[in-house]
């Protein structure tokens, strides 16, 4: 198990999809707790990658590639994890994620979703080009603790504010924390539109989410 966990971590950091998926499959087949695979293998690798990013040791292509490998490995591990959950399992904090209307860029959102899952959150990913109407409906139906709004284009960033205003209009604003992110998004913008949280990378998004739900200070 240890050896395959190391291979899994190395594959994620080096962005080797074939070796990563094979290691994840071997771990699952060996009956290793999927939570351990996520927390001790995949999450550790992604946080290490985040640190390497901060230190300038890796660049955007490496991070994007590793995120894609993570997605493929997660497709092996997550179904086993979900199958283990039953009605007695304490639900995790739920995060609804969306790339806002007019924007098809979902790499960042996907990375945040993956990191949140490995950190003990349940994530409902609404995908890309998502309207305020759909986000409102999802919040009314699922009652998440957090909604995360991603926008990569300068032209679509204002839609984050549109969504927040809709939440106010619908009387939902006090029921859900709003996180915003995306390359052009700034802390000043987040403050201006009265978002509850802002993060400029996936590991930071996890930290912010943990604070918003009271899991961290």
């Amino acid at each position, binding site marked *: 198990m240890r050896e395959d966990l190391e291979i899994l971590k190395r594959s994620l950091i080096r962005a080797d999809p074939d070796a990563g998926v094979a290691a994840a499959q071997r771990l699952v087949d060996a009956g290793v707790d999927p939570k351990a695979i996520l927390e001790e293998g995949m999450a550790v690798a992604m946080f290490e990658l985040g640190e390497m990013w901060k230190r300038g040791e890796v660049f*955007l292509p490496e991070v994007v*590639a590793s995120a894609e490998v993570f997605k493929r490995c997660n497709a092996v591990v997550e179904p086993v994890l979900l199958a283990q959950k039953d009605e007695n399992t304490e639900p995790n904090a739920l995060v609804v994620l969306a790339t806002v209307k007019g924007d098809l860029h979902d*790499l960042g959102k996907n990375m945040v979703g993956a990191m949140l899952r490995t950190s003990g959150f349940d994530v409902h990913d609404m995908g890309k080009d998502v309207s305020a109407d759909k986000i409102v409906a999802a919040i009314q139906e699922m009652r998440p603790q957090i909604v995360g709004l991603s926008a990569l*284009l*300068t032209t679509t960033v204002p839609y984050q504010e549109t969504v927040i205003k809709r939440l106010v209009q619908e009387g939902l604003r006090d029921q859900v924390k709003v996180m915003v992110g995306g*390359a052009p998004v*700034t802390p000043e913008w987040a403050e201006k539109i009265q978002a509850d949280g802002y993060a400029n990378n996936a590991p930071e998004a996890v930290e912010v989410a943990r604070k918003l739900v009271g899991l961290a200070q």
Partner: protein
Amino acid sequence: MTSTGAKVAFLACGAVALDTAAIIERRGWDADVHGISSDLHMTPLEIAPAVEAKLKDLLPRYERVIVVYGDCGTGGRLDAVLERYPAARPAGFHCFQWYAGDLYRRFADDIGIYFLTDWLVTNWDRAVIKGLGLDRFPWLKETYFGNLTRILFVRQHPDPEREAKAREIAAWMDRPLEIHDLGIGPLEDLLAPMMGGSDVRT
């Protein structure tokens, strides 16, 4: 004072610098052109500081600077820098928007379009394939481009070799290609008013 005596400097992204110089020459404007790397597009947070450093270098010698760089994902950080100096830039988010002019407005709601310009086609292998890591991770192609529906090549200068490359790119992305010959007029229409000249092309 500059060696040319020009009072205005254009600080142009490498992706538009040649066309900017051509417009200046055609219009006979008394202005110099200085370059700034188009590679900053890959790291948008570095654009505003890099432009500011150039402004500090240029402004002691010029009365004002016209920055020909799109917002390019700075999220308004570039405009915030320009407000602090006698500097301005054409409105717009990306250089392909400047080149596309009315066409960009017409297709503004079609979010699946990928725009090519002469510069992007010419520099495709370096800027896109290498820049996005597709040389090392070719399996990321779908991750980057899977959401697109079609490609619009807003062409400045027709060239058979470049057109062949654009078709090769479209085939590689497996998306339909449309070519629109728009020249550099739309960019000129944006720059002319900033020089106080007519915004009507002659």
